[in-house]
């Protein structure tokens, strides 16, 4: 058994934001697809070092919100301030450079590649050796490959997936695929990690494993996490603060206890008598 990796080594990169300061601020964001209003005038913030949950009934606009945060959609109205800078319109592949990584609701791994290669792919942006060195597989390209392999192995140790290192991910069971996807996101060394339903379709044991990894990532690496989840038990236990969306509008925002007792939230989930 390998010793657990040293947490200091795995610390989230310094992004110039002190713990407890606002890392991401979403201000009055509205997003519509034609006539369909996905998000209407939503504002909230994510503080560095916290686990922030976004919950809401189906179709509430949670995933759209995540897509707005990582630049997949550009909102028609409102502003997003990340790491103290206001966001301009950007391409999705630029999100990583800014320090945002995410996982998907339906696992979006590279199915033909091994676990190791999937996680290594997460570090593509950080690898700089030119095509000349790549052709020769020598000098800088090789040194870089080995250095990143080391970091990736730390992530593999951390997620306890050593045994599937060389297995093509298409052959892995669902729970492990989710874990590999988390590994790929961690490899990007994000300052904000977005998790879209990390426990969807898992059994109790897998959920507990995943919760443990999320807490470890948050506490050992100090990575700020924003997650969407439907399992209320998990959400209430994991998150520091919760924002609740319904029909694209924010209906509550606060600690899990506050949200749990909010009448609007209870109405959204349980319905109101007519």
């Amino acid at each position: 058994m390998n010793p657990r990796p040293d947490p200091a080594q795995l610390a989230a990169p310094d992004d110039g934001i002190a713990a407890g300061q606002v890392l991401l601020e979403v201000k009055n964001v509205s997003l519509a697809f034609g006539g369909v209003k996905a998000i209407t005038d939503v504002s909230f913030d994510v503080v560095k070092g916290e686990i922030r949950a976004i919950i809401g009934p189906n179709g509430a606009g949670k995933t759209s919100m995540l897509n707005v945060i990582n630049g997949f959609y550009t909102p028609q109205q409102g502003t997003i301030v990340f790491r103290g800078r206001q966001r301009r319109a950007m391409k999705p592949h630029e999100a990583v450079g800014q320090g945002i990584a995410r996982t998907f609701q339906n696992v979006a791994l590279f199915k033909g590649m091994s676990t190791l290669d999937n996680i290594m792919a997460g570090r593509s942006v950080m690898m700089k050796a030119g095509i000349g060195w790549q052709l020769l597989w020598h000098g800088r390209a090789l040194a870089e490959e080995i250095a990143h392999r080391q970091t990736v192995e730390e992530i593999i140790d951390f997620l306890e997936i050593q045994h599937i290192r060389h297995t093509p991910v298409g052959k892995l069971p669902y729970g492990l695929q989710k874990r590999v996807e988390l590994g790929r996101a961690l490899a990007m060394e994000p300052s904000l990690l977005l998790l879209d339903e990390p426990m969807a379709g898992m059994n109790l044991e897998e959920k507990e494993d995943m919760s443990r990894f999320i807490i470890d990532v948050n506490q050992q690496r100090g990575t700020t996490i924003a997650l969407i989840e439907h399992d209320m038990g998990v959400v209430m236990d994991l998150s520091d603060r919760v924002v609740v969306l319904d029909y694209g509008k924010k209906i509550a925002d606060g600690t899990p206890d506050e949200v749990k007792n909010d009448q609007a939230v209870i109405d959204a989930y349980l319905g109101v008598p007519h």
Partner: protein
Amino acid sequence: MLYRTAGQFKTSYEADHALFPVRQDAFLLGFVLVLAFVVFPLFASEFTFRALLIPVLIYSLAALGLNILTGYAGQLSLGTGAFMGVGAYACYKLVTIFPELNIALAILFSGFFSAAIGVVFGLPSLRIKGFYLAIATLAAQFFLVWLFQKWGWLYNYNASGAIQVPNIEMFGITVAGPLASAATQYYFVLCFVVLMTVFAINLTRGRIGRMWKAVRDMDIAAELVGINLMKAKLLAFFVSSYIVGVAGALFVFLWRGAAEANLFDIPLSFRVLFIAIIGGLGSILGNYLGAILIVALPVVIGAVPELFGMSISSATVEHLNVMIIGALIIAFLIVEPHGLARLWAVIREKLILWPFPH
């Protein structure tokens, strides 16, 4: 037993990233290289060189180029033949304009012309995928072959409309043209193929290869891990067309000796595509296995009746060829849709355990 991997421990990531983590693979490759560099040239006849060895190598190289685009980066192309043509015509023009230019350099340069054209015709891949992209590359196929026919400057306005390879010397040895010996040409082609293969292996196992495979497997996720889709796809078109172009130049200069525009028409594209598919998309080894099957098998089948002293008319042999090859292709695709390379991978897995069941 033959392939026992037990006891081969790796103590560093360098060792694990080596080209052959398993020692037996290295021995096997060494054996094949000795065959290719020493044994074949010693025993091969002029006919074997021209009908078997040289075409297998050249077709492997063309399939390797296509495989980088289709197998690794997931962009289907039906224009391989035309891109080979660009390489061949570019080389022809380079040789006529700069007669002093070393032929090896001319071939390497001509790859850049087809790479540039490949990138231009790769631009639609930024918006369309799959079958639709295949149609766009088909347009390249028709357009380029038409250009080869109509643009007289390309074939120096000669009356036949064909390009003829003159005798070309390199370091005092004739390597191309009617006077070149088959063994020389074989070595020349072999060196090119080995060099390109090493480069292709290195590219596909590193960052760039992962980038391509990521684009192939899940383009949205690839974007969100920070891969610029445009750059990745165009780079794949560039590298692929470069290799295909070099293969095209070798095809005409080191093998055919002369070429007309319709040589690069769609049957050539399909031939190379068959080799890549039967060999195995997304594999380097597969290109060689596929080329051996598609190119060498007809020659072998043609020789069999003579072996038994039967005299069958050459037309019948030709028909038999087509039927047998066609049946084999269908059989292979049913038994192993991932190609010969996967078949070898399965055999290798079995050999690692053999003769024990577990």
